[in-house]
């Protein structure tokens, strides 16, 4: 085994551990929003480590392109999914943990009483 293969193995192992940490976070964190942050570890950090580890095990230009493409798609989709879930959770009134200190969305809702929730607003058609 060469040095790059060993480093690649370690990165893949670290990526698997990142998935484990994200899974434990789902059980341990207090509310929907912090759990979504825990899931981000398995959704973004874990796959990134595993993909880079795989590239180090079999380095070639073609694999680098594939890994780069997979990384971009994975990171973009996990971020969009996380935002969509957080927004859906807020609009349906998911409970917030006691540690939550203040909530500007509520402030905004009080100020424009009777108007739409800011999460709904689409001034120029689609956002």
């Amino acid at each position, binding site marked *: 085994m060469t040095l790059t293969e060993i480093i690649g193995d370690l990165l893949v192992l670290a990526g698997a551990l*990142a998935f484990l*940490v994200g899974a*434990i*976070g789902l059980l*341990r*964190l*207090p*509310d929907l*929003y*912090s759990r*979504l*942050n*825990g899931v*981000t*570890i398995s959704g*973004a*950090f874990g796959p*990134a480590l595993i993909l880079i580890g795989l590239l180090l095990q079999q380095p070639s230009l073609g694999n680098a392109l594939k890994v780069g493409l997979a990384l971009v798609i994975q*990171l*973009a989709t*996990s*971020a*969009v999914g*996380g*935002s969509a879930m*957080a*927004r859906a959770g*807020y609009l349906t009134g998911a409970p*917030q*943990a006691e*540690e*939550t*200190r*203040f*909530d*500007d*969305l*509520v*402030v*905004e809702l009080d100020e424009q009483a009777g108007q739409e*929730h*800011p*999460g709904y*607003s*689409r*001034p*120029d058609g689609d*956002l």
Partner: protein
Amino acid sequence: MTVKSVLNWILGILWIPVYLAYDLLTGSLRVGWEILTPGSRISAAFVEVPLRCRTDFEVSTLANLVSLTPGSLTVAARQDPATVWVYSMYTHSHGSTVRYVHAMEDRLLRATRPAGKPPRAEDLERDEGGQRL
């Protein structure tokens, strides 16, 4: 547009993945440490952040960059005036979260605007509870 501003723009595009990797690493370690050690250091908040972004692309890219970093999450976005509402797991104060998002916005605007990024707004201070002064 000078040669210097074009070089700055290209460097800005190249820097974004570097910053992103750094944020991803530090954020993951921080939230991972929170998960694996007993006790809770969470002091969460939903913070309204006014933006200098103008186009759909800029607002949605910024919202995604914020969501991508463990420890912060975009809950809602509005385009006119451009604003995002960010859930932040570790909030020292209202201003610290606004500055964090604005630092990310600086890097993004450096990459999307060849003419250079506009200066930050100054009148965003809030009190301890996050209320407008």
